[in-house]
Every structure is written in C-alpha cells, then in structure tokens.
C-alpha cells in the first residue's frame, strides 16, 4: 500500500483490465457467466464498488447510505428517457450531475461527524430518501409501481429529430445503437474501464495520498495545515457520482426505476463487495462485485431438484439431510450465504481477497528469494 509504484506496473494493470473486459465473455464462458445480462451486472456493480472504495478504502469513512445514490440514478435516467430522448448519453450525464448535487448536500451534513456517527447519519439519510420515494415523491417516483417508460412519453429531442418508435415501447440507444445484449455490455464495459482509470489516477495522486492521510490521522493533518473537510467531501461526492453512474447504467440496460434499490441492505451489499475484494486496493472492489454477483446468480438459481442431483452420490438418508441443509443457503436463502460470507470475511480476512492473494504470494517469495523486499513483509503495528 505504498505509493512508490512504477508507471509500468500501472500500465500493465490497466492493459490487463481492458483485456479482461474485452474478452470477459470468452473468459467467463466456461464458468457459465458468458452472457451479457450478467456481465453487465458485473460492470455496473464494479463501478459502484470502485466508487465506494474511493470513500471507504481511502478515507475510512464507512457510509451506510450509498444505496441512496444508486437509487437516484435510475430515476434521473428514466426521466431523461421519458422527457428528452432514448439516447443514453444525456441520461447518464443527468444522473451523474443530479446525484452529484445530492451527494454534496448529504455529504456536507454527514461529514460534520466521523466514525459511527457518520455511518448512522448516512444511514438515516438513505432511509429518509427511501421513505420519501414511496410517499411524497410519488409523482416523481411513481411509488411502489416504479417509474416506467410509456409509449406516449414526450421525448422532446427524439421528436425534434423525427425519431418515431411507432406502436412499440422504445428501447435505449447510443446514437442509434440499441443498448441491449452485447452492445449493452460493451457500453458498460467501456464506462467501467474509464471509471477504473479515473480511480487509478486518484489513488496515485497527491489528492489520493491526502485521503489516505485522513484515514490515518486527522489530527496530524489539521496541524499540518490541511483542511480535512473539503478532502472528505470531495471523496464523498466523487463516490456518490460513481454510484449514480452505476444507477444510470442500470436504467440504460433496463429502463425501470424503483425505490427498493435504495434500501439499506443494498448499501450493505456494496460494503461487502468492497471488503470482500479488498478495501483500499484498486482491483479488489471490482473483483468483489463480480464475485458476489456471480455467486448470487448461481446460488439463487439452485432449487431442490438441482441439489438432489448434486448430492446424488450420497446414500439416500444422507442425501436428504445434505439437501435440506444446503437448501438454506441457496435459492431464496442466498441472503443467508451473503450474511455468513460477510461475517467470515470480516473475522478472518479483513483485508479481503487481495490480502489473501498477497499472503499466498508472500509465502512463495519468502521461501523463494528470502526476504527480497522489506516492505512486503512488513507487519502492521498493533
């Protein structure tokens, strides 16, 4: 975690990342994840987690209300589809700008406190937004039904250019390219790469170092002549905009907005993605997001039949016992797995998968070259 990094290493990392996104469909084919809907989800939640990590990973401020930003994105985007155009570019720009302002407001208030107070404040704001979306804001959010496209929406810009969707419900486009299937995935993929690159720049910048200094010692920072509040606020707004962008992309692939995305369990999910992958690492959050969405997809698809098949090698009595235990964790019970995973990671591997990989690597380098770099073996002080 030291900033003395080589430019070459970063370039390689970025190149690897681009290749992974480009060939994702082929690489993940053998794992049964090579289809656009799921890959799109990886990309979208990857963006969400990268953004969350800029706040939590660098500054250590644990926001429990990031789902509020994720939830605002789709509303803004869908309204843009309804009123202006089915083109996704304005929708996404609007989503990011609106949420940026939203994040500025919430951040300005929440960041007056730190620690648990900050977590509770953000949680309170998110719950407030969630409740409002279901009550007073119904004219904007369409309440529990959710905001949907209609055939007779005005779509001013589209009409201006004489685009007519006829009797069918229109679908989102990028200057005429329909945003469904593979083109949808690659659109999200390109955005993911851009957002990953931005996060990399932030990590390697003086600004990023200041954010890590916030996490390390705010008192020292103040007495060093640095004003911590604008730094944390900037981090909060940036990460809020990432979340909104992710929300906007959700609407691009599925133009429907509902408040359930704002629920605080969704905020918990992004925390889990980030810590599962590795808080404060560049790649970790993307990996964490991918892993969780992948297993969610697999686990929730299981049902009793598939389980019976899996355990068919066992004698009948045991088979049924195994199935009934396993059934708790799959299908409807996916959340149980999620919760258990949450605990296991926090208890045993607070550094996340990246930390795990590092530990294994260290085992090899230690036995191999015998303490090549002093900082790699550095134990954190108590």
């Amino acid at each position: 975690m030291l900033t003395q990094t080589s430019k070459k290493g970063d370039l390689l990392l970025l190149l690897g990342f681009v290749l992974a996104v480009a060939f994702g469909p082929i690489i993940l084919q053998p794992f049964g994840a090579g289809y656009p809907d799921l890959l799109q989800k990886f990309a979208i939640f990857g963006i969400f987690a990268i953004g969350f990590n800029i706040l939590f990973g660098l500054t250590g401020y644990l926001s429990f209300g990031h789902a509020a930003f994720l939830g605002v994105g789709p509303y803004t985007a869908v309204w843009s589809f309804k009123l202006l155009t089915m083109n996704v570019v304005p929708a996404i720009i609007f989503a990011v700008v609106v949420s940026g302002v939203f994040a500025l407001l919430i951040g300005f208030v929440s960041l007056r406190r730190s620690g648990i107070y900050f977590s509770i404040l953000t949680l309170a704001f998110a719950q407030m937004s969630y409740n409002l979306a279901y009550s007073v804001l119904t004219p904007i959010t369409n309440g529990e039904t959710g905001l949907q496209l209609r055939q007779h929406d005005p779509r001013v810009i589209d009409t201006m250019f004489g685009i007519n969707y006829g009797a069918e419900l229109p679908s989102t486009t990028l200057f005429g390219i329909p945003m469904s299937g593979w083109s949808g995935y690659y659109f999200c993929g390109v955005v993911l790469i851009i957002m990953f690159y931005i996060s990399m720049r932030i990590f390697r910048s003086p600004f990023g170092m200041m954010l890590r200094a916030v996490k390390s010692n705010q008192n020292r920072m103040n007495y060093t002549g640095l004003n911590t509040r604008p730094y944390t606020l900037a981090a909060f707004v940036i990460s809020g905009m990432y979340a909104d962008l992710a929300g906007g992309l959700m609407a691009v692939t599925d133009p429907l907005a509902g408040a359930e995305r704002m629920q605080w369990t969704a905020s918990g999910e992004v925390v889990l993605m980030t810590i599962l992958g590795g808080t404060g690492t560049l790649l970790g959050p993307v990996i964490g997001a991918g892993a969780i969405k992948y297993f969610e997809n697999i686990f929730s698809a299981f049902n009793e039949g598939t389980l019976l098949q899996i355990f068919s090698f066992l004698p009948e009595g045991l088979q049924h016992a195994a199935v009934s235990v396993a059934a708790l964790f799959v299908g409807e019970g996916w959340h149980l797995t999620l919760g258990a995973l949450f605990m296991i990671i926090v208890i045993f591997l607070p550094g996340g998968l990246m930390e795990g990989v590092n530990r294994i690597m260290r085992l090899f380098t230690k036995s191999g070259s015998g303490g090549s770099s002093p900082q790699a073996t550095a134990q954190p002080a108590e």
Partner: protein
Amino acid sequence: MPILTVRNVNKRFGGLKALNEVNLEVEEGTVHAIIGPNGAGKSTLLNCFVGRLEPDTDTVDFDGTSLLGIKPHEINQVGVSRVFQTPEIFGDLSLVENVMIPALAKRDGAFKLNGWSAMNGETELRQKSMEMLGDLGLADQAEQQASQLSRGDKRRLELAMCLIQDPKLLLLDEPTAGMARADTNNTIDLLKEIAKRGITMVVIEHDMHVVFSLADKISVLAQGTVIAEDLPEKIKGNPKVQEAYLGGAHL
C-alpha cells in the same frame, strides 16, 4: 521584536481558573521553555496557541496575525508547526509520504483537488523530503511504514514533518516524554541542531535536564500564572520558583 505575543490570556473550565492573566513574549530565533508543576496550565496554554482551545480574553499574536478563533490548519498555514506529546504521524503511510504531505500542504495550501496529477511526478518534492529524512537519520527507512518505527524515531519523523515546512515557530509539547535516557539525549541534540538553524521554538517540558540544556529563556507557570520569566541560570536561583515549583528543593 517578539514573534509571539501572549497578553492577558485567561481560561476557565467551569469554576476552575486554568490560566490567569498569562503574559508571554517569545523572541524570534530563540528557544523559549515553559515549565511548571503538573496542572500548572502548560498544556492548556499551548492549546490556546494552536486553536484547540479558545481563551476567554485578549491577545495571542503571532507575527502580526491573531491566532484566536482560527482553526488548527489555518494556524499552521501562517507558519506555526506543532510536535505532540505522543508523536502524531501518519502510521499507515511510508516515511517519505509522511514528509511529503506537509511539504504539499506548504506548497498547495489547505486544500487542492489535484486528483489527476501523479505523485510519481513530484520528483522535486520527493527529493527534498528524502533529504530531510536524511538530515534526521531516517533515510534508510524512507519506504517503511511509519507505525513500525521506535518511539524515538517517530519523534524524529514528526520533527522532519514540521521542519520541511520551514516553520517560523515550532511548538513542542514535552518532546521527550516517555523516552528512554538515550533517546532523550538524542532528541536534545537534535533540537539543539534545529535551534541552530534559527527556528524559534516554544518548548513545554517537565524534564529539567532537557529544559536547561535547550532553553534561551524560561517562563515558570504555577497555578495558571507566570511566576517568573528569566534566563535559565537565573531561574535556577530564583527563590519564588523554588518555593512554588520545587517546594524549596535546590535545582
């Protein structure tokens, strides 16, 4: 011309009068020590200089700026750096980063949204920081994580972080508290070196050995009031000081 002027400072905590009409003048380029028995108000006074506590009345002037009611980072930006009783450093960061942060604060001010430029591009700053670490004998550990340093080395690092900002005034709050004798002596030597560079220092100290080897001038604080202010050799013989501070024992 004093660089720091403290006039008629009072501070109450509830019914307790922690500081009572304190007056103090620190001349530029000198080491000024503030001593006093426990609870005399030394730390309270220091906290009044750095914006952590707001004194009830009158003046704390530094180089023409009032330090009253402004925030810690603003006080630092006018040229006051501070060393804490327990070294305050960025434990998760490397030593060189620890020094680069104050250097950046000095160059770019209290906040700059430079998220797009690269730390790697800051070669000049890095070199300056490495030199500073070298001056304090920490060059070898430059890439190490700061939390792993020994207590004495943490103090050195903290001093490096202050010195890289070329402070006009350096405040030290019991810089050798909790240190072993050897570390204490090293720190004294180090502070003498720093004093030679002409940096004004205000030292709050408990340890007489430290005070008398460093200070150009000593103020004695007892029960919130300055009872004596003089050259070290004269302080030693001052009966008032012996009475209040040492209960009559000889220094």
